[in-house]
């Protein structure tokens, strides 16, 4: 009777691989349908709504990257996979908090997946510096490096940017990366940032 549009996992994967508006709609769908479970999980485990929002947004980013680079192989449903990423991230953060506050607790030993990234929080100044650095790249380089850094294959990048083949995309990527590296070398603040970020 009251059916709303529902994405299958296959549709979600395709939308994320396509990018653009289709990806935005897929993200909107995930937020509307999966956030409640994550908020419930984190609040039940001593977190706040702000924690839940942080973790959920980070986990969506990880999910998207893992779909694009093929790490997500569809062995579990997307909802289960996303839930597992959030659970792992939350326990990682919670353990760190416990360590930092030296708080004695009878916490259950949760199995934390060490490969799950921690949340990267950038200061405003660092963000501005990073944006300024990439802003100095030529427009076509900015776009190409963004696709490449977002785990799209050279064939997909060639398709998106209308290059004749993957090899052309690869050659352009090398030129753009060389440009980025030169800019990094010229700016001591960027070198400091790289160290601060532990890259």
């Amino acid at each position: 009777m009251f059916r709303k549009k529902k994405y299958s996992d296959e549709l979600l994967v395709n939308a994320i691989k396509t990018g653009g508006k289709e990806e935005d709609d897929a993200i909107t769908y995930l937020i509307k349908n999966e956030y409640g479970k994550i908020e419930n999980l984190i609040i039940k485990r001593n977190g706040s709504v702000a924690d839940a929002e942080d973790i959920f947004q980070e986990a969506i980013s990880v999910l998207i990257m893992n779909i694009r680079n093929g790490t997500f192989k569809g062995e579990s449903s997307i909802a289960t996979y996303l839930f597992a990423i959030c659970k792992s991230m939350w326990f990682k953060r919670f353990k760190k908090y416990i360590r930092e506050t030296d708080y004695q607790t009878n916490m259950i030993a949760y199995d934390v997946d060490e490969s799950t990234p921690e949340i990267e929080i950038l200061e405003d100044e660092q963000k501005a510096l990073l944006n300024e650095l990439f802003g100095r790249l030529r427009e076509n380089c900015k776009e190409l490096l963004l696709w490449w850094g977002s785990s799209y294959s050279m064939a997909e990048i060639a398709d998106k940017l209308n290059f004749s083949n993957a090899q052309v995309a690869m050659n352009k990527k090398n030129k753009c990366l060389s440009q980025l590296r030169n800019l990094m070398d010229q700016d001591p603040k960027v070198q400091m940032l790289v160290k601060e970020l532990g890259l």
Partner: protein
Amino acid sequence: MARQYTFDQIEDYLDGNLPEGERLDFEREIESDAELKNEVSRHIQARKLNEFHARQQLKEKVKNIYDQVKAEESPSAGFSMMKIAAVIALFILAGGYFYVYQTYSSGKMVENAFEPYPNRYGTMGDQLEDTFIQGMKYYDMENYQKAIDIFREIPESDPQYVPAQFYLGVSCFSGDEPASSITAFQTVIAQDSKLYNEAATWYLSLALLENGDEDKAKEYLREIVNNDEYRADKAQKLLRKLDSPLRYLPGVD
């Protein structure tokens, strides 16, 4: 550097595009040539910084979409939506009787206002034995009849009784059993559940409307609006529609 490597050759190595023999030679040279090692490290740094930047861009995008979704769900967004609804109502007055029917017949109003409550519980492997979670699995699959059967099995003594009654109500409503859903939502409200009381009130008002008890439904809708509860924006919109003179056009209700 004993041998000069071009930028592209170093990238070929890092991209995994060198043939096996060349890759092994290259790795031996890295170990013995500090200058080459340093050069490769700088490549890696640039690549990592680029990946980091791309991740940041993606996170910004996700955050923006998240904020937008939440803003649309807020009461103030609902108010804007009501203004749009008012414009649409004027358009309807000018012409489309069919559209009036679609918008103002109580059945259509309920259909437009209703959407299933999201699953707030995981259906992870370690909980599969849990009856409630089994019910939620069917709920997720929109197999409401199965979900109803399972939720009805959960006794009052079970800690999941209130959420089970709540999702039973939503499932009954989705499965065209408004009378049963009224009983389930009244049970939830009687338990005064912090988590489900407000949502149960919203769904109860829809179920009453669907069941033809418009006066009682309006009482609950006013309560939701006055207390700024869950779906206050939608409740206000519904009340406006319910009180609209367009409803008295022949054949609308």
